[in-house]
């Protein structure tokens, strides 16, 4: 009962913070600087990326280094879908196009998630990590060779061959050209809420418990009849679909987009969001994705040093949170403060219990 209550509180706080942040952003939209406004939609995309990768790394316990690959599949299939609708079928309604693009992006990434998941999830540990990395690089490399255009109502796809009839949508290594910037902040918000509903419900379900059981002890989980591959697959594909949706939104936020944008570094960045937010902690992933995406903008004054600062912060945070000696020192410093709070808390809970008792 208590655990259930805790989960309920955690989930409500997560949703509450996201909704509050959305409302605040809309209220203070006018006061924001231009660069910060431009960051809003990317931030929502990176939050969805972090939440979805958290499902793979935190909940299912597999290290994936190719998450940006799914994002790029979503981005480019979303862009093609949107461009096809506009140029082939004259669909002018931007919201409709955006929704369809996001759905297409999610479905395509999901299909690739299944195709990639089948070989990848047979491997373990570091071998699995390197293969996801390899798939991420393959996706980027192949996308560099894909050309697409709309000829009348037909969608023409070309591989390595750049001479296509009609209006060009994808231009190989030069990426997507003349993309309509139709992404909206509200769509990003809806996507975050959607991903939270999916992930939090999944984690608290029978399926989620099975996934966590395979993470904690594969052999024990297998011996009580849990189909390990199936549950790992569910987590992996769900994450891929969410990443594809985030990718579609991300792609439609820029007027041009090249496949080189989704390099190995981007996968690593999302992993950093997840690890700094606390592995397996969805709220933490959301917060760290927001703060770390904004950080380079905020450090704009130190333009030359900002990535340096970022790197040093990353290393220091890891040492401070993981080294037993440093942790002991930090705890001894914070112990009096903690005691103060705990004392108050105890008094408060005792008071509350007293109330119930009466």
């Amino acid at each position, binding site marked *: 009962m208590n655990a259930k209550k805790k989960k309920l509180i955690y989930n409500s706080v997560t949703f509450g913070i996201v909704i509050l942040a959305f409302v605040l952003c809309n209220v203070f939209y006018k006061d924001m600087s231009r660069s910060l406004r431009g960051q809003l939609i990317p931030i929502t995309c990176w939050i969805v990326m972090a939440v979805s990768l958290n499902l793979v790394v935190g909940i299912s316990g597999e290290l994936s280094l190719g998450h940006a690959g799914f994002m790029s599949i979503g981005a480019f299939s979303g862009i093609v879908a949107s461009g096809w609708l506009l140029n082939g079928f004259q669909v002018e309604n931007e919201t409709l196009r955006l929704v369809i693009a996001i759905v297409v992006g999610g479905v395509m990434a999901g299909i690739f998630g299944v195709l990639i998941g089948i*070989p990848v999830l047979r491997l373990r540990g570091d071998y699995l990590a390197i293969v996801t990395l390899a798939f991420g690089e393959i996706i980027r490399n192949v996308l560099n060779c894909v050309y697409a255009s709309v000829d009348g109502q037909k969608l023409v796809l070309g591989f390595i061959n750049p001479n296509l009839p009609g209006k060009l949508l994808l231009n190989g290594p030069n990426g997507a050209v003349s993309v309509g910037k139709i992404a909206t902040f509200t769509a990003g918000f809806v996507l975050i809420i959607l991903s939270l509903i999916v992930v939090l419900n999944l984690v608290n379900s029978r399926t989620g418990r099975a996934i966590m059981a395979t993470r904690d002890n594969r052999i024990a989980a297998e011996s009580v009849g849990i189909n390990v591959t199936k549950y790992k697959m569910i987590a992996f594909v769900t994450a891929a679909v969410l990443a594809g949706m985030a990718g579609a939104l991300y792609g439609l936020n820029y007027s041009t987009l090249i496949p080189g944008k989704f390099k190995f570094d981007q996968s690593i960045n999302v992993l950093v969001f997840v690890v700094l937010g606390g592995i397996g902690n969805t709220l933490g992933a959301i917060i760290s994705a927001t703060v770390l995406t904004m950080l380079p903008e905020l450090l704009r004054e130190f333009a030359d*040093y900002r990535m*340096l600062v970022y790197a040093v912060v990353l290393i220091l945070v*890891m040492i401070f949170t*993981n*080294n037993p*000696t440093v942790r002991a020192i930090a705890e001894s410093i914070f112990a009096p403060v903690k005691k103060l709070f705990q004392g108050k808390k105890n008094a408060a809970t005792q008071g509350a219990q007293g109330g119930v008792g009466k």
Partner: protein
Amino acid sequence: MIFLSNLVNGISLGSIYAIIALGYTMVYGIAKMLNFAHGDVIMVGAYIAFCALQYWNLPPVLALIVAMLVCTALGITIEGLAYRPLRQAASLAVLITAIGMSYLLQNLALLIWGPNPKSFPATTMMALPTFSLFGGKLNISGVTLVAILANIVIMLVLTTFISRTKVGKAMRCVSEDRGAAELMGINVNRTISTTFAIGSALAAVAGILLCSAYPTLMPTTGSMPGIKAFTAAVFGGIGSIPGAMIGGILLGVIEILGKAYISTELGDAIVFAVLIIVLLFRPTGLLGKPIREKV
């Protein structure tokens, strides 16, 4: 004849990958961590050699030695400052630290040497003639041969070192069972430091060879060869020294032949696809030990 020339070039590139992969595989075998900063140590090594040749006017041999010394010191420092405090931590925390270290090195290089690509004085570094065989039909550049020779020499010396010396024995012990090695009086920290020192010195050699063959030097020069070499190490079975050599050479040959005969654009994709196929049939690489599961 073109095939032969491609093959030699592939073996040469593969030799460079193999030397880098040794650094990954040794560190993985002994410290059980993926050292993502290794690729950037290569870049630092190449920059130091560049400075030694261009600004300090040192002879090539001294430039090599200076680069190796600086990289060795760098490797030991990185290990001591960033990785040693995390010896007991979860592997993901160590991985993120290594990634942070990689960013740090890249951005330091960016601050020191600037973002513009530097042209590595390859001809000063290796003033070697091009060898012509079969009446000029097959031309092999000096750098190509040096890379292959360097790889063979390094491999022989390293294998002897690991199997014959006391330090090498300590390394094998630590990689087998760290706790038991400590109980037997082996200084685990010093052994790991030595491993980093050797790996980083080799990275300097690889950096110089790489930039002699492809003379564009940027702060991000090391990252792609780093990832490829890491792939090579996994390909051969991570933790295994002969595996790194075989994996590196095979990867280089596949890359060059794939680019020549299948598609230039898809060269990297072919390399990674081969890796995936190999791992599907041998989940721990070509020469890797099978993972034993205990209940």
